[in-house]
């Protein structure tokens, strides 16, 4: 178990009032939380919690086999009920994001599957899912081109920008944007926005999220170190 950047509520309040700042809610993770899987990770961002498991590279179904690279399969399971189109879209984004991160050509004719179970959505759910999936892949030691870090940000009515918003903030925001960056050149891998905004706001959010992504990468590192220390 690793837990970092613990902020008191008071500190959080102060941060929210301050000019836009690259902050995250408290991040907690547990790598290898499940033992039978090749890789697993449970990640909390504030109260948003997601569990991700990764399998692979493993046998692939004939119909989905690709001769030049690995087949990346992602299943996103919502907290209740069957997956609906809105969940399919999420699943699609996560899969495409992971596909570009995974070194697919290293494992032709095999499957790498990631199953993501939403346990609690209290804001920035998509970002949390992608981060958890990346951790699970790291835990499974699947070859990656780069790591990915997702950060959400919200544009409030008064123009203020909040990173890693909670559900309540998201609901009040005029626009919510989720960015995914890679760890090598910090280029943009994915982006999903919701709501109307200006070009300028887009740029501010993007830069802020990119900055915040650095702490996510740092967190990945620490989580792994913790795990390695434990196993050694």
């Amino acid at each position, binding site marked *: 178990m690793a837990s970092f950047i613990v902020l008191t509520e008071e500190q959080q309040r102060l941060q929210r009032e301050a000019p836009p700042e690259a902050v995250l809610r408290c991040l907690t993770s547990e790598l290898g939380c499940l033992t039978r899987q090749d890789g697993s990770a449970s990640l909390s961002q504030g109260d948003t919690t997601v569990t991700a498991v990764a399998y692979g590279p493993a046998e692939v179904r004939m119909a989905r086999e690709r001769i030049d690279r690995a087949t990346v399969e992602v299943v996103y399971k919502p907290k209740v*009920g*069957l*997956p*609906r*189109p809105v969940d*399919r879209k999420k699943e699609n984004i996560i899969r495409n994001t992971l596909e570009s991160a995974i070194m697919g050509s290293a494992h032709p004719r095999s499957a790498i599957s990631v199953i993501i179970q939403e346990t609690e959505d209290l804001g920035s759910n998509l970002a949390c899912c992608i981060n958890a999936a990346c951790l699970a892949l790291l835990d499974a030691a699947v070859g990656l081109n780069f790591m990915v870090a997702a950060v959400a940000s919200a544009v409030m009515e008064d123009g203020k920008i909040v990173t890693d918003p909670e559900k309540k903030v998201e609901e009040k925001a005029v626009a919510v944007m989720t960015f995914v960056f890679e760890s090598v050149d910090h280029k943009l891998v994915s982006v999903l926005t919701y709501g109307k905004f200006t070009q300028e706001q887009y740029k501010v959010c993007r830069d802020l999220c990119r900055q915040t992504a650095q702490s996510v990468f740092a967190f990945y590192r620490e989580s792994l170190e913790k795990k390695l220390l434990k196993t050694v």
Partner: protein
Amino acid sequence: MPTDTRRIQGPETSNSPYDFCPTATSDPALLEKQRLDGRDSAQMRPLFLRAGVISQARGSAYIEMNQTKAICAVYGPREVQRREDFSLKGQLTCQFRFATFASQHRRQHQQGNQEKDLSVQMLEALEPAVCLHKYPKSQINVYVTVLQHDGSVLSAGILCASLALASAGVEMYDLVIASSAAMYNDLTISDPTVQEEQAVLSRVGKGSSGMLTVAFMPSINQVSAITSDGGIQFDTLNKTVRTVIDNCQKLYPVLQQTLVKHIEEKKKGISSK
């Protein structure tokens, strides 16, 4: 019915606004005086046909009979998907669909019983024309979607599919021509609209009334499908079969010309490249 989790869902129940206004009950007796669109009883609607409308399909066609509009695509011959479908003779499949917005009342996304029935009837009409023994182990898929339903959809679907099959270069004994007629007592009206169909099939109707559709292969003088609905006097039905076959004969050149035009265009396209 379980909710469809693969589509965007609306409210659990909703009603058509047309349920809340007096519907003009279509009395078939009115047909005896004058048809709603002013046609003669034996007059068919103008036929607009075009082949090769879908770039991805092996063959395709679009048909318009005034307000009845349908589009058809043909894929294959291609490998059969399921192994148990394997057969030495080729296999023809037909799927007949209405667009959800094709009628005054909205249709569901899932294929309904009427659509299934029409799919089967279309298959019956086309199968005798296609030289399936030339396509062993393979499958030819015909998909028809009615974009707007204003009567005689089965004939429209068959005409469109027949043209699409021909434009796909599928070997056939003959083109299949289909035509419909509505009957009321001694009156036979060719190529009915949806209102006329409803009038002769309505449950309030008394006397002999109904619908007939015949699919016909003019060159070899064979009927490939025949289907009727409603309660019809035997002699009327017998007589109408003749009339409809004659109507099919009239439509034959239209299909032939469309096909010739399509092939000419294709040839031009190739030579210009």
